[in-house]
């Protein structure tokens, strides 16, 4: 899981302790894979880090095409700062 990653967004949901995260990932490597397989890819990539993370929530694991569709169907941005 490397070079072709398009976009990763990580949100610290721990309230400061740094052990709880929500992630949204857009990658063309997800193409043709079921959601379970996509999550497994992310878990594998984060295997080392998972030892120190209490909770990791994969909010989105989508392909660029799916991402585009979702962006078009919702006009509101996912996160704002």
């Amino acid at each position: 899981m490397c070079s072709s990653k398009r976009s990763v967004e990580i949100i610290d949901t721990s309230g400061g302790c740094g052990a709880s995260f929500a992630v949204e990932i857009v990658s063309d490597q997800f193409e043709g894979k079921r959601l379970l397989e996509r999550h497994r890819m992310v878990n594998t990539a984060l295997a080392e880090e998972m030892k120190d993370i209490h909770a990791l929530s994969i909010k989105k694991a989508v392909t660029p095409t799916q991402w585009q569709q979702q962006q078009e169907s919702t006009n509101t941005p996912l996160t704002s700062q």
Partner: protein
Amino acid sequence: MMIMSLAIGGISFAPNKNKTTTSSSSSASQLLLHNSSSNRLRSSSSSVTITTRRIRSSSLRCFSALNPQLKITLDKVTTSNKVVLFMKGTKDFPQCGFSNTIVQILKSLNVPFESVNILENELLRQGLKEYSSWPTFPQLYIDGEFFGGCDITVEAYKNGELQELLEKAMCS
């Protein structure tokens, strides 16, 4: 709430470890403690009983929590029940928000399911991570197969796939 941006490429990830580091020695001693006597765990209904055997401390060094006997037991538990939820706490008293989410989903769909509290048995907890190749809990099994964790279950519930699969499982 803090948002970190990442370099595109491999996922590199640097959580602040200040308050969260658990030392491996403490978990090892916990394991020993758990296994000093035969360790028995009961799910909320009496039909599921998981027993883990005592392991020798010498094997703790590079041991795999998933011993052959535990694997056989887990095969039996996951195949003899249509829906099994390995969770933190029990279905009547979930001890984690993610576990609670799945419990609520299953309850709202009126699906009969077994729940196994992994907090009661450290060896089971570690062994299950290997068994499912999944690092976290809850873990939902449907028809003998690992279905997913909380995020996957919520997603499948929203798009109707979960209901479809459960219906199929109940009829089979």
